[in-house]
């Protein structure tokens, strides 16, 4: 139902003149910071002066600056039709909801609201809802709100509450510019003077002007000879039009054969041409060029003080270079603004991006925003896939992770990794993050849920929610560790919910870890739980022997301890409920070896982990003080929690058999 935006209708293809400058400036502002400047923006003009073009240009530009924005363009008739269809299908509420989530709503031709009471009420409700939510509305009409017949007072005041601008008929210069640009677009070339003479006629409408250009192009194509200004005027019957001004159309000459007459152009137009030439000569050429540049950039909303100051000088050194450098600075500002808009739409609207004199400041702002928004926290480089020990206990999870890497965002989205503390969830998460980040253009947000919550609180506190959101929306993958910490954090869940939907829709990968199945986690909203369940939930269990061996070998290698098969076997055979606890055991052994200045060996490990020899046991007992024992390994242990005297293995076996 919604009409697609015509890609030809952009600000770049819109010829700006005195009659439409205000409207274009307002439209640009709205496209750059929707919902904050003029809301609603109401543009009116006669037919064929570019309302629809501007409306679509707003949509296209806003989309370009912030692709995530939901932009809807439609004519009032389409809106009415859709509404009626929705009502007929019993979907009125769905219809309303749909339009209430639009970020920029562009409605064309609202003059047709005349005598449509129910549509007026509907539109009033919608515009109230959108404005309250800070969403942008832009409307066009062929007349100002007050002149739309039988329009509800409340709508009039609402429409007039933002900015009401009109687009006037193009003046001579704009007409020439339009004709030039359009003939260029069509690859048609006319001898000098032709377009100017056509533009001299008072066209009140750009469409009419286009029709005229079409005729010129067609005529020239058929005749294969370049058109002259006189022939063009005759072809278009412009002499009558010019003559309508009153008085007489000075018809000089007229000697030729029957029917042929030479019509001298409109006196005023000729006068205007003369004045233009004289002014051109009088106003030194460089001044004219600078003045034109000022008009152009000012029309696009840039401060032109720098160029204006040139005009005040007697003879500037190199005016053309100054203009070129100004243009370069504007380009740079544009690039900076576009970049900043990605990070933080709020900052992009700053006036500093509109003043080439403050380029340095703009660079600074941009780098600040860049630094501030500098990618959301990424994965830890210390936890790559290469160091992730793989065994039967985690093979499934690893396989799934690999498949995710093959097609991020498509196969298992979200991926939820469950497991007890220390079994390697975080390691797997970060390893995935590192791999994902290696894809071109990837921005991976990989952080603990606690950090995520803290950042959000910081953003709320600093009133930088837009910045915060933009930062995460930019990411191509979101990996959150310890999802259970979300419990009871309603606002975080709300934001995560929105991010989740965005990422899911855009096929960006989501990965979460948690200690238990989401539905058993307390304080998690059902909508989050159901979304987590919608992907794939895999579990990491206690590390098996292979994993333990791998972890031990890796840890020893990392600490430059020579590999001792007996030590590895001994340690790997010890029960460990998590990789972390295993690493802890190993650490104790290594530290003890360092303290005693002996090599790490199975014997030492046994000694450290099982309490050492009987002699030592006695010795340690002698050290006892207040129930706390300082072990030789350097750790502090509570006496009560340590089994000091073990029964002999034989006794234990019998005990077990019983």
């Amino acid at each position, binding site marked *: 139902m919604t009409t697609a935006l015509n890609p030809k209708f952009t600000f770049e293809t819109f010829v700006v003149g005195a009659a439409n400058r205000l409207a274009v400036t307002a439209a640009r502002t709205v496209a750059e910071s929707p919902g904050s400047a003029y809301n609603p923006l109401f543009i009116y003009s006669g037919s064929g002066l570019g309302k629809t073009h501007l409306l679509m240009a707003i949509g296209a530009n806003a989309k370009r600056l912030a692709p995530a924005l939901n932009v809807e363009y439609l004519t009032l008739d389409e809106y009415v039709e859709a509404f009626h269809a929705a009502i007929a299908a019993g979907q009125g509420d769905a219809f309303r909801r749909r339009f209430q989530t639009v970020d920029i709503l562009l409605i064309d031709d609202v003059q047709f609201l005349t005598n449509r009471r129910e549509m007026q009420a509907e539109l009033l409700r919608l515009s109230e809802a959108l404005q309250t939510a800070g969403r942008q509305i832009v409307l066009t009409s062929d007349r100002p709100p007050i002149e739309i017949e039988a329009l509800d007072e409340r709508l009039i005041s609402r429409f007039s509450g933002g900015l009401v601008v009109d687009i006037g008929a193009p003046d001579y210069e704009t007409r020439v510019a339009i004709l030039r640009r359009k003939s260029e677009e069509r690859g048609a070339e006319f001898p000098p003077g032709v377009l100017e003479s056509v533009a001299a006629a008072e066209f009140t409408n750009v469409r009419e002007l286009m029709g005229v250009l079409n005729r010129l192009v067609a005529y020239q194509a058929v005749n294969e000879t370049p058109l002259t200004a006189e022939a063009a005027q005759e072809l278009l019957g412009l002499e009558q039009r010019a003559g309508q001004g009153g*008085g007489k159309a000075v018809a000089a000459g007229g000697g030729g054969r029957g029917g042929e007459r030479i019509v001298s152009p409109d006196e005023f137009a000729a006068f205007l041409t003369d*004045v233009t030439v004289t002014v051109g000569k009088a106003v030194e050429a460089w001044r004219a060029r600078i003045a034109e540049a000022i008009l152009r950039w000012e029309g696009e909303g840039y401060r032109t003080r720098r160029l204006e100051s040139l005009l005040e000088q007697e003879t500037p050194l190199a005016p053309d270079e100054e203009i070129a450098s100004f243009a370069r600075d504007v380009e740079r500002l544009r690039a900076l603004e576009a970049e900043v808009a990605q990070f933080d739409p709020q900052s992009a609207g700053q006036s500093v991006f509109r003043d080439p004199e403050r380029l340095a400041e703009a660079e600074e702002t941009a780098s600040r925003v860049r630094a501030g928004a500098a990618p959301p926290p990424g994965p830890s480089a210390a936890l790559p896939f290469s160091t992730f020990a793989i065994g039967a206990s985690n093979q499934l999870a690893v396989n799934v992770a690999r498949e995710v890497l093959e097609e991020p965002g498509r196969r298992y989205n979200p991926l939820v990794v469950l497991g007890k503390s220390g079994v390697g969830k975080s390691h797997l998460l970060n390893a995935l993050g590192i791999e994902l980040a290696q894809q071109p253009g990837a921005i991976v947000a990989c952080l603990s849920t606690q950090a995520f919550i803290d950042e959000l609180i910081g953003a709320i506190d600093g009133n930088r929610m837009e910045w915060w959101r933009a930062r995460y929306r930019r990411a191509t993958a979101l990996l959150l560790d310890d999802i259970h910490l979300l419990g009871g954090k309603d606002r975080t869940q709300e934001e995560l919910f929105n991010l989740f939907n965005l990422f899911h829709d855009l096929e960006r990968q989501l990965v979460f870890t948690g200690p238990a199945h989401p539905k058993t986690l307390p304080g998690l909203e059902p909508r989050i739980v159901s979304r987590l369940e919608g992907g794939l939930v895999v579990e990491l269990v206690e590390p098996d022997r292979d994993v333990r061996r791998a972890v031990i070998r890796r840890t020893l290698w990392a600490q430059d301890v020579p590999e001792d098969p007996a030590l590895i076997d001994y340690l790997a055979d010890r029960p460990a409920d998590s990789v972390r606890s295993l690493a802890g055991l190993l650490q104790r052994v290594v530290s003890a070896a360092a303290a005693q200045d002996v090599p790490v060996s199975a014997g030492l490990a046994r000694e450290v982990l099982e309490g050492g020899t009987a002699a030592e046991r006695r010795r340690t007992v002698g050290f006892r003080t207040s129930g706390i024992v300082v072990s030789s390994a350097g750790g502090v242990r509570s006496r009560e929690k340590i089994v000091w005297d073990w029964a002999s293995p034989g006794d234990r076996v019998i005990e077990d058999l019983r």
Partner: protein
Amino acid sequence: MSLVNFTTREITCKIVYYGPGRSGKTTNLHYIYGRVPESRRGRMVSLATQTDRTLFFDFLPIDLGQISGFTTRFQLYTVPGQVYYNATRRLVLQGADGVVFVADSQARQLDENLESLQNLQANLLEHGIDIRSLPVVMQYNKQDLPRELILQLIELDDALNFRGVPSFPADALHGNGVFETLKAITELVLRRLAQGAPA
């Protein structure tokens, strides 16, 4: 009044049609008014007596739009020709960038023409302006009248145009020579910009 304002990028030309009573100054303005597209012209203000004589002055603003990046506006004024409105004439002359002297070509009006020309010179002097430094063009109006009633161009030039400024024969009622005159004074006025003379 500044003729060219580079800061606001505006060119404003004030052109005064001067001449004896009934020489056709207002007719010039009326003709121009009729030829300027509606969108370009402001309301023509004309304070006239019941017998259509200019009582105070006529004023016709014309907007020429953007020229070389300058918003260009012309303000055309006429003065009341009758001798006893001299105070008004002096007032209107204030800040003029150029003067069109509309002379009546009829032989019997020669004295009035001369008197008005002297009056112009005197009034300009009152404003501290030497007529030789101000752009002036002559228009010999009513050239459509029977030859026996009017002076020939050469005679008029001899009698009135002793400074040798551009002169044009005209029939303002039918528009002949009106725009030629306007064009000439405009060119003179604008050319002063190039010379950097303050207007």
